[in-house]
């Protein structure tokens, strides 16, 4: 059949776009708090104030005439990331991983000249990537170094972890891996792989690309069964702490693992997408109901993480446990 019945979807606890907008975003996220997450610079300063690690800021460019300063600014760096401060969905992010004299290289190996980088920066300032085309600011950050755990799981670029945090409790997590098809980007609809991560353990549960289950990374052929995220507790605690930091009740926290500095927050999202349900092969609704049923929100992020790990662990959930096993036995058979 081409479509499935809404009843089945509801039974499975899938949250739809309308329900996300109405029941979660509009309900838990007061509009006035949006600038805190829509403006990446504000998020960064906020996080630093809260003692949360963020990628190092190398510089900002506010006006078109600042573009001239770009060359001087970049002289001392060989690798960096250029981002629009108000960009959304990974738009306008330019990663430079290598430089030879005046030639800059993207992780894919494509070469850019300084002029091209300047044009990109100018476009960002003009507001090309911002919501509503408003003038924007450019921020230049240090490049995150790939943690060896992920070697073989990422094609060009660093994987990032998306954690959905409801009222301070992490409820679902997904690792986004860039692929050749996604052109090194971590956007699921462009072909990045989404790997559902067990909140309880940090182990991979299930992976999808283009909405279909996959068991190995499409480019490196490495199986996801061995994938386990290190520093899992610290990572979840970081995500949970973003609730106090921003006041937003329904939050998507994007975290990367740096080889040297460990987990870092790179972006917060007040309207996180719904693909995470496909990557986890589970609906958000049962978990949302668990949190909404709570009488008391624990002020301590660590205790909240403990709660989440206990209740949202894949093995404790009768729904998802056998499925995981099944997926794994499939993989073993392939081996």
């Amino acid at each position, binding site marked *: 059949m*081409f*479509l*499935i*019945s*809404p009843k*089945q*979807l*509801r039974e*499975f606890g*899938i949250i*739809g*776009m*309308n*329900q996300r907008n*109405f*029941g979660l975003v509009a309900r838990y996220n007061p509009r006035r708090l949006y600038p805190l997450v829509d403006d990446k610079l504000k998020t960064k300063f906020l996080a630093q104030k809260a003692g949360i690690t963020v990628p190092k800021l190398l510089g900002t460019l506010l006006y*078109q005439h600042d573009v001239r300063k770009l060359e001087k600014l970049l002289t001392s760096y060989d690798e960096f990331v250029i981002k629009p401060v108000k960009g959304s969905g990974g*738009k*306008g992010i330019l990663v430079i991983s290598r430089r030879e004299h005046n030639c800059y290289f993207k992780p894919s190996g494509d070469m850019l000249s300084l*002029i091209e980088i*300047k*044009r990109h920066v*100018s*476009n960002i300032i*003009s*507001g*090309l990537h911002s919501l509503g*085309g408003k003038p924007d600011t450019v921020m230049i950050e240090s490049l995150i170094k790939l943690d060896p755990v992920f070697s073989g799981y990422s094609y060009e670029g660093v994987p990032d972890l998306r954690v959905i945090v409801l009222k301070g409790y992490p409820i679902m997590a997904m690792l986004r891996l860039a692929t050749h098809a996604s052109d090194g980007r971590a*956007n699921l*609809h*462009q072909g990045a792989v989404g790997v559902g991560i067990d909140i309880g353990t940090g182990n991979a549960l299930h992976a*999808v690309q283009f*909405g*279909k*289950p996959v068991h190995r990374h499409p480019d490196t052929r490495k199986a996801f069964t061995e994938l386990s995220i290190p520093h899992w507790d610290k990572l979840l605690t970081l995500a949970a702490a973003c609730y106090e930091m921003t006041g937003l009740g329904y939050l998507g926290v994007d975290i990367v693992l740096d080889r040297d500095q460990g987990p870092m927050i790179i972006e917060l999202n007040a309207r996180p997408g719904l693909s995470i*349900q*496909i990557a986890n*092969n589970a609906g958000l609704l049962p978990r949302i109901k668990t949190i909404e049923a709570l009488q008391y929100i624990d002020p301590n992020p660590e205790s909240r993480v403990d709660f989440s790990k206990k209740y949202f662990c894949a093995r404790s959930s009768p729904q998802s446990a*056998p*499925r995981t096993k*099944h997926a794994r036995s499939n993989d073993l058979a392939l081996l």
Partner: protein
Amino acid sequence: MQATFRLYTLVLLIMIAGIGLILYKHLALGFPLLPDEKKLVWIVEAKIDFIAHDDPIKVSFALPPKNPDMIFLNEDFASPDYGFSELKLKTGRRAQWSKRLAEGPQTFFYRLSVYKSDRIAAAHTADKPHEPIEPEFDDVLKTAATALLTQARNKSADTETFTRELIKSLNTESPTQNQSLLINKQSNADEKTDLLVSLLAMEGISARIVRGLFLEGGRRRQSLANFIEVHDGTRWILFNQDTGRSGLPDNFLIWQRGGQSLLDVVGGTNSRASFSIIENVQSSRDLVLGDMQDKQAGGIIDFSIYSLPIEQQNAFKLILLLPIGALVVVVMRLLIGIRTSGTFMPVLISLALIETTLVAGIIMFLIVVSAGLLIRSYLSHLNLLLVARISAVIIVVITIMASLSIISHKLGLSQALTVTFFPLIILAWTIERMSVLWEEDGPKEVLIQGAGSLITAIVAYLFMTNHIVEYLSFNFPELMLVNLAFILILGQYTGYRLTELFRFKSLIQQNVSDKP
């Protein structure tokens, strides 16, 4: 909960207000709910001719009485240099023309537009009859009349059947001696009516002459037909004096009741009145509007769009369609989940499609956007600032539009000239957005969003050009309230979108197959 309750109360109130106003306009003011209701309107023209002889002139002409089953749209009087007044006498309305001196042939016109109302006219009971006056016949005629009356009386049961029998026997093909004696007396219709009234008076029945006009299109030089109306003690019954059939015939306009003359001319000779009738089809909405303005009764009408000049009314025709387009966008995005580039860009495109017609419009839209995308991809190499680039795209779009118009004009395709109806700035932004989308998310996303926008625009177009929708949105602006209520309800919809049933399909299928 509180908020939801408040919203639904609001929705309910808006809905009731909207539907109530629509029903009021429909039921009380007679606005038709569907556009196809056309009504036959007759334009009756009475022409009065006479010859004046350098004397003071006074012309009096009977005018048709207003009655509920025939609605008069308007009445015109045309008479060169004559004093004119409309008199309301006990016996009916009369027009009076007067002049101190006139010479030679004179002509007056009276023009009346009339249409039949849907309302069933109540039986005409108001006026009481006079006592019948016994006629003065000579002995021979009296004997013949008595014989005829006796015969009719024997064959009938009441006033109605008696009158029918009497008319029948006067119209018989093979008259008896008595009948022919009487019949020979009636050389024209008026005398026949007189005879009937006299005969009925002998029987003690009140009767009166009724003159009227059969409304048939394309008739000229008609004269009024004589009918006879008989009072049976409680009500007046109308009879055709030639057939004996009772009741008001279809499409018959009663012009005059009672024995007064139709036309009196003092100071002139050779006077005559003739009638011509033209048939005309008008939408019943126009008739109701005319009726309202006539009666000064529709307070609603006075403060409605109809009170604006025609030019503004036409502008509103288009503006009032916009809410329909907005509703389509809401449904497409919230219920179906189609992605469009720009929220209301499709509505603007569909407005343009209304002017250009569908197929030509879509072809032109595709040509302009794809040509724009090509040139825009070149512009992106030129390293321009955003505002300058969009301005450049606007100029490019104008150039494409102009060349498209000129080329198609040379080729003899007048359709493409309407390309100017496309909103220029919106097109330029669409091109810019699509081009950025292409660079960032690839051509697939451009196709998805482009197709989504076009499909939404086409659906909105189909709704907005629907004859009924167009009619309703303009004539019942109250529908906007109903529309608003729907949009408010849709704003609360938290169910799945149609596309999500597809999006999450694999997820469910897998779980079903996993379960033992």
